[in-house]
């Protein structure tokens, strides 16, 4: 297993509406995902050579205030290969979302926990592809029961190399 990307809060890209707030907690940058409104952000990368095997997103998070309940996230992938008939000006082409949840957030707000989501729907991403990774808190998921913001600290993308 190899670490392929470390997605930081500062490197995130935001849509025009419903995006997580870029904030700082004890000088640590975080993305604050709301508990009532589904918010989304993106990262853009190039798939490295040697990319292989099962891919997973490992989300490092802490809760702002919740000490019970769970959180759920959706990760989606858009892979664009050179010459693809996809007009980047006005089109997105994300594969089906990959959902995952942590049914029990840490019992102390501020404690860090990691949630791993296997990216089965990878949009056939291959080495050298132009890749966008979307992250959204799935507030409508039955497992997303924790109150308040979920602060995402980092997202690690691993493959099977």
């Amino acid at each position: 297993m190899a670490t392929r990307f470390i997605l930081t809060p500062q490197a995130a890209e935001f849509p025009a509406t419903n995006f997580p707030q870029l904030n700082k907690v004890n000088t640590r940058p975080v993305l604050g995902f709301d508990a009532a409104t589904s918010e989304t952000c993106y990262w853009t990368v190039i798939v490295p050579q040697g990319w292989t095997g099962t891919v997973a997103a490992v989300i490092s998070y802490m809760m702002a205030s919740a000490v019970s309940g769970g959180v759920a996230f959706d990760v989606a992938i858009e892979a664009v290969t050179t010459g693809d008939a996809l007009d980047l000006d006005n089109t997105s082409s994300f594969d089906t979302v990959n959902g995952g949840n942590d049914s029990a957030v840490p019992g102390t707000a501020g404690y860090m926990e990691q949630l791993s989501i296997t990216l089965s729907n990878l949009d056939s991403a291959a080495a050298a592809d132009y890749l966008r990774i979307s992250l959204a808190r799935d507030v409508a998921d039955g497992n997303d029961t924790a109150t308040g913001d979920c602060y995402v600290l980092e997202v690690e993308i691993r493959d099977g190399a």
Partner: protein
Amino acid sequence: MAVLSESDRVSVWAEDMRDISNIREVCAINKIDLRAAVNATDDWVDANQAAFNAALPLAARNGLTTSQKARLLTYVVAKRFLMGV
């Protein structure tokens, strides 16, 4: 006066969670239970608004607007509970 609409209750719920997050205050219940508390609070206010109005001295009862009475209630409740009086 009726209870808040569903969307207004959702708005209150969301705003409360944002406030709790912003001040980093521990919240021991989950968001389903918090939503139920919003509904219960709104139901209670709806059921007791006439009693609140009747409890006001006559001058205030007749002289304050509905908004002014609502603000008064908000300030007193905030002072009593948020300030720990």
